[in-house]
C-alpha cells in the first residue's frame, strides 16, 4: 500500500509539470491556433540557458531569473514574431510543420553549442525525504507540486479574476468581437506566448534536476504534454491540468504495474481511446464543425 502512495505522490509531481507544459500548449492553440510541436524542446532549452548563465559565473538565483527572461524573449517574443506571425495566415498545418522544423533546430543547436551529453542541474528544493503520516516523501516531489500548484493557481486567477485575463479570454474566443469592444487582441496573443514561455521555463526548472539536462529530453516531455492536453481537453485550461496530472500518475503506475517495456504505451492507449470516444477531451467542450 505504501508503494502505491509513493507512486501517487511521484506521479502527481511529474503530472504537475506535464500540466504546466500542457496548459501553455492549449493557450497557444486557443489564442492563435498554433500547434507547437516544439513544446518539448521549449522545456529542454531554458535549463541550458540557465546553465549557460551559471557558466559565466552568475549565482543560481540570478541564473534562474535571467534564464526565465531569456526564455520569454526567445520562446515567447521571437517565436511569435519570427515564426508564428508570418505563418499564421497560411493555416494550421504549415505552421505545425514549421514548429517541427523548429524542434529539430533547437535540439541541434543545443547539441552543437552546449553538449551532446547529459549535464547535471541543481535543484531549487533540497534533496532528502520527510516523513508524512509514516511515509517517506521526497522533498523534491513536494517542492515540484507546490511550485506547480502556485503557478496554476496564479494563472487561473489571472485568467478568471482580472480584467486582463477576461480580455485574453475574449481575444481567444472571438477575436473579431473582442476587437470591436476594444480589446487589444494582438497584445493579448503576445501575452499568451509570453505566459507559455514562462510556464515552460518553470517546468524546465522543476524537471531538469530529476531527468538531467539533455538535448533530446524534449521529445518525451513534448509527447507527454500533447497527450495530457488532448486527454484533458484541448480547449480548456482546467482540462490540460487534469490531463497532465492523470498522465503523470498513469505513467508512474504503469512503470511498476505494467511491464517496464510497455510503460510508455499506456498513456498512448489512453490517448487513442479518448480521441475515439470523446475527441473533445475529458473536460473539453466540443468545437463546432465548419461546413
Amino acid at each position: 500500500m505504501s508503494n502505491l502512495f509513493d507512486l501517487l505522490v511521484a506521479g502527481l509531481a511529474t503530472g504537475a509539470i506535464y500540466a504546466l507544459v500542457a496548459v501553455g500548449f492549449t493557450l497557444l492553440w486557443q489564442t492563435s491556433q498554433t500547434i507547437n510541436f516544439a513544446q518539448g524542446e521549449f522545456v529542454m532549452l531554458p535549463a541550458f540557458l540557465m546553465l549557460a548563465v551559471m557558466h559565466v559565473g552568475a549565482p543560481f538565483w540570478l541564473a534562474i531569473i535571467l534564464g526565465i527572461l531569456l526564455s520569454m524573449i526567445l520562446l515567447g517574443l521571437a517565436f511569435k514574431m519570427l515564426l508564428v506571425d508570418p505563418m499564421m495566415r497560411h493555416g494550421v498545418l504549415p505552421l505545425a510543420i514549421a514548429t517541427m522544423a523548429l524542434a529539430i533546430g533547437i535540439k541541434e543547436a543545443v547539441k552543437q553549442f552546449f553538449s551532446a551529453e547529459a549535464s547535471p542541474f541543481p535543484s531549487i528544493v533540497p534533496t532528502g525525504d520527510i516523513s508524512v503520516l509514516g511515509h517517506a516523501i521526497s522533498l523534491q516531489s513536494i517542492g515540484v507540486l507546490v511550485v506547480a500548484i502556485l503557478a496554476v493557481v496564479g494563472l487561473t486567477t489571472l485568467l478568471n479574476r482580472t480584467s486582463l485575463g477576461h480580455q485574453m479570454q475574449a481575444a481567444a474566443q472571438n477575436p473579431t468581437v473582442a476587437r470591436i469592444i476594444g480589446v487589444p487582441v494582438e497584445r493579448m496573443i503576445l501575452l499568451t506566448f509570453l505566459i507559455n514561455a514562462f510556464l515552460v521555463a518553470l517546468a524546465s526548472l522543476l524537471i531538469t534536476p530529476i531527468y538531467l539536462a539533455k538535448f533530446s529530453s524534449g521529445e518525451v516531455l513534448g509527447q507527454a504534454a500533447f497527450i495530457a492536453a488532448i486527454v484533458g481537453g484541448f480547449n480548456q485550461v482546467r482540462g490540460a491540468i487534469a490531463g497532465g496530472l492523470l498522465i503523470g500518475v498513469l505513467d508512474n503506475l504503469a512503470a511498476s504495474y505494467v511491464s517496464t517495456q510497455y510503460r510508455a504505451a499506456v498513456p498512448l492507449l489512453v490517448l487513442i481511446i479518448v480521441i475515439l470516444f470523446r475527441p473533445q477531451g475529458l473536460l473539453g467542450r466540443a468545437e463546432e464543425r465548419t461546413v
Partner: protein
Amino acid sequence: MTGFAKPLKIALGLAVIAALIVVPMNFNRYGLFILSQWAVMTIAAMGLNLTLGYAGQVSLAQGAFVGIGAYAAAIMTTHGWPLPAAIAVAIVLSFAVGWVLGYPALRVQHHYLAFVTLAFSTLAFLVFRNESWLTGGIYGISNIPRPHIFGIATNKPLPFYYVCLGSLAIVSLAVWWLIRSPWGRAFIALRENPLRAQSLGVDTRRYTLMAFAIGSALGGVAGALYAPLTQYIDPVPFNLSLSLDLLMMVIVGGAGFYLGPFLGAMIAVLLPEWLRFTEGYYLMLYAIAVMLLLIWSPTGILGILDRYMAARRTKAASALRAVAKSRLETAQ
C-alpha cells in the same frame, strides 16, 4: 509545370530518367547508397503524399509503415523467402494496418488525427523494440540478403540501386495512374470539401480508409526495400523522427503535387550530404531552411513554381485578351 510544351516536358523527363540510369554507373559505394536511399524515401513520401496531399488526411505514422515493411522483409528474407514475396506481404500487411488506422480518421480530423497517428507511430516503435522473439529487439536483424532478380545477383551496390530505381519507376507509374483515375479525383474531393463530396455520392468513408491504406502500403514497399538496402535493421530508424522527416519531405517538396515527394526526398536525403562541410551544423541549417521556405511558400517548392507559372499564364492570357479586344475595336 503546365507552362512547358508537352514534347519539351517528355524530353525533360526522359533526360532525367536517362541521367538516373547512366550517371551513377561510376559512383562509389556511398554515392550509390545515398541515391538508393533517395529512391526508397521517395516511395514512402509518395505514399504519404497520397494520404496527405491528395486526400488531406494528416498522418504522422508513415515511418511506422516503413518499419513494418522493413521488418516483414527482413524476417522473411532471412528465413529464405524471395524478396518479391516479402514485398507482397509488406504491401498486404501495411495496407491492412493502414486501413484500421484510417478508422479514427472517420471520427476526428486534422490535429486530432495527427496525434492518433503519432501515438500509433510510437506504439509501433515499442513493438519493434520489445518483441525480440520476432524483431530481434534492440539488437535488430542483420545479414539481410539482397535478392536475385532474373537470376542476376544484386549484392553489389549498383545492381541494387537499379532494383530501387526500378521499384520507384513502377510505383511512380502506379501513382500517376491512380491520381488520374476516379479514385484520385475522389481523394481530391475528400480534401477540398468532404461534405460536398458526400452529397455528390462519393463514399467518403471508403475513400478515407482507402487513402490511408494505399498510402501506408507504399510506406510498406519502401520499408521492404530499405531492409535489403541497409542489410541490417534495428528499431531506431523507424521512430517518430522518420515519420516527421517524411512529412517534412512531402510539405517541402509540395504536398498535392505529383513531383513533390521526388523533390522533397531529394532535399532531405541529399542536402545533408552537400552540407557535410558544415559538420555538425547541417541539421540546424536544414531546419532553418525548412522554416524559411514555409514562411515564404507554405505549399513547398513546387508551390512557388506553380504560382510563377500561374502568374505567367494570367499575364499571357490578359495580353491575348488585350489583342483580341483591340481587334474587336478596330473591326467596329
